């Protein structure tokens, strides 16, 4: 137990100097099965939304369906890019491609079948949504989705674009 508190102290000291966290490097998969690094989550210096979801998670599908409806407008206005990260494991992973195309979602979808990225991003529950700034820093995050939650999200992206600090 002593060493546990030793480690905690170490973390506490580090956290005093620590900056905003950046997106970790983890191997993901495209829905077609090819391996791709999380370093490929890019948007030419514009903001990025990362949203963790699963085909069996109703609130997640609701959230992404809402995003799909407004995505074109959002992109035109703010240049934001959305990456939806599916945590479907090998039970439902083979259905992700047909699920996404069948719903005609306009954003990028990547898969995290053994939850490596989910763990590295410290996600407890889905849906969980992050905003990433031009320096790949995680500047905001939110867990769960309720109707209208997209309004706060796009408002924060606008603020980020106008140079405001949206860290809380």
């Amino acid at each position, binding site marked *: 137990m002593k060493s546990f508190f030793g480690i905690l102290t170490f973390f506490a000291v580090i956290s005093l100097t620590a900056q905003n966290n950046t997106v970790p490097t983890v191997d993901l998969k495209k829905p077609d099965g090819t391996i791709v690094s999380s370093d490929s989550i890019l948007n030419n210096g514009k903001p990025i939304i990362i949203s963790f979801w699963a085909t069996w998670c109703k609130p997640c599908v609701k959230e992404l369906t809402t995003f799909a409806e407004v995505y074109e407008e959002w992109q035109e206005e703010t240049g934001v890019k959305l990456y939806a990260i599916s945590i479907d494991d090998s039970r439902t992973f083979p259905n992700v491609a047909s699920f996404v195309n069948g719903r005609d979602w306009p954003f990028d979808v990547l898969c995290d079948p053994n939850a490596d990225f989910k763990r590295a991003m410290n996600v407890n529950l889905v849906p969980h949504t992050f905003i990433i700034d031009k320096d790949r820093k995680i500047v905001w995050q939110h867990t*769960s989705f309720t109707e209208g939650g997209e309004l706060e999200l796009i408002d924060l992206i606008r603020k980020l674009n106008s140079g405001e600090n949206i860290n809380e």
Partner: protein
Amino acid sequence: MNKFFTAALLIMSMTSVAQNVLQNAQIHGDFQTDFQYYMADSAIGADTIPEKLLSNGYLNLMFSAGNFSAGIRYENYNNVMLGFDPRYKGSGIPYRFASYSHKDFDITVGNYYEQFGSGMLLRIYEERSLGIDNSLDGIRLRFKPYKGIYLKGVIGQQRFFFDKGEGIVRGIDGEVNLNELNDKWSGSKLRTTIGGSFVSKYQPDKNPIYKLPENVGSWAGRITLNYGNWMLNSEYAYKVNDPSTVNKMIYKPGEALFASLCYSQKGLGITLSAKRIDNMNFRSDRTVTGNALTMNYLPALTKPHTYTLLAFYPYATQPNGEMALQGQLNYKIKKNTTLGGKYGTDIAFNYSRANAIDMQKVNDSTALMQPGTLGYKSDFFAIGDELYFEDVNIEVSHKFNKKLKGIFTWAYLTYNSDVIEGHTDGTFYSHIGVADITYKITPTKSLRLEAQHLMTKQDKKNWANVMLEFTMAPKWFIMAGDSYNYGNPVKSKKLHYYTFGFGYTKNSSRIALTYGKQREGIVCVGGVCRNVPASYGLLVTITSNF
């Protein structure tokens, strides 16, 4: 081992690079605690809990600086909540790791998670809501020697609650993406990935009756082909004889085959999958049952349902043998059409079925599944007569106007409880209908109504469920619901399972309170899904990350 990590961290902070490292250092983590105050309710079968309050707690702390990262997880069970394995007792640090990556090479020591292919031979993972954590404690190497080539090697022992399993797990895996490997093929319309793995476990033989294999080897090969809108994905796995408690000590080798074919284009997606599993239970300890020390993952080839009544009769893979198939269709009816309306309509159709495998006696003098023998013979392509599970379901999602939208589901389930639960209640046939309607009062305030009905002549007969939820985005939700077993022929068993819930979310921190009676299943409230066991009382869930 903990001393080793403390020492490593200390050395890091003392060296001359420390200044530099500290400037790039990042700390992140997450926290979850669930606790429940239990009350007895003899009618629903909720017993008195001596402690009255049970709780599970988890804290992950991770540190990273440049190419170096390290982390720990503290877990606390005082005492473990109902529905989890009681061997989770007390507290400790069952997970700690340090890893270093450089260009195309990375090494992890301590605990780690890993999956080879689809996981038929090796899937090391954590599923907290199910109480599963089979992490390996040892060494893992990953190497990309050339573009398109991915190699992995693992060795270690698996977590067994706050201890380690006796068996040693070793494995290697390679995957080659032919289109990345050779520039000539990079523009090809046909994209090919092939892979293979070898996994073995070692456990001493102390059995007084049988001579058991101390080393059990297994191998698997896989291929993924993409051509235009088509995708084919298949994996075959083979395991040498591995008598265990789960397979009733038979010496038959195990094998598994999975294949899926997918066609998708804008607005249409079709996936057909099939699998055969024959004696593929794989654990690093042959005597262990339940969810502990599993090395591989054999998921059910069925749609995971989340609505309360739809999730009443969920299927679980039979690792000793099953043949299963699944078809899924996703179709979007375009907007501004008669059926699509102003916003379009999403249709999802799903069919799945699981049967026994064919089983014949090895010879006339040996009984089926006789311990110490091969157990049975099986024709690879023959389907066994016994039906384990069947599910036909259709889901229609439609947005009527800016304020009103709904998801409508109907399903017909056939559930062989004798096989799935090991009871003798026979097979249940049920029709289930669900209407999930959301009404937006203002842009951020909504009301959601779920109305569900389950109709069956077996088990506890008919059920009805109603749930009303009010949400204020992005922070608040409040809900009330009731499941009523109105069809139960015994009057005193026509029971209500009511629930009241309330939740508050501030960015990535969330607190949710649920009071009422709960049946086992996956429950989704206030925008999040999780598994919960049967109980009566007040449940509080707090999650946060940083």
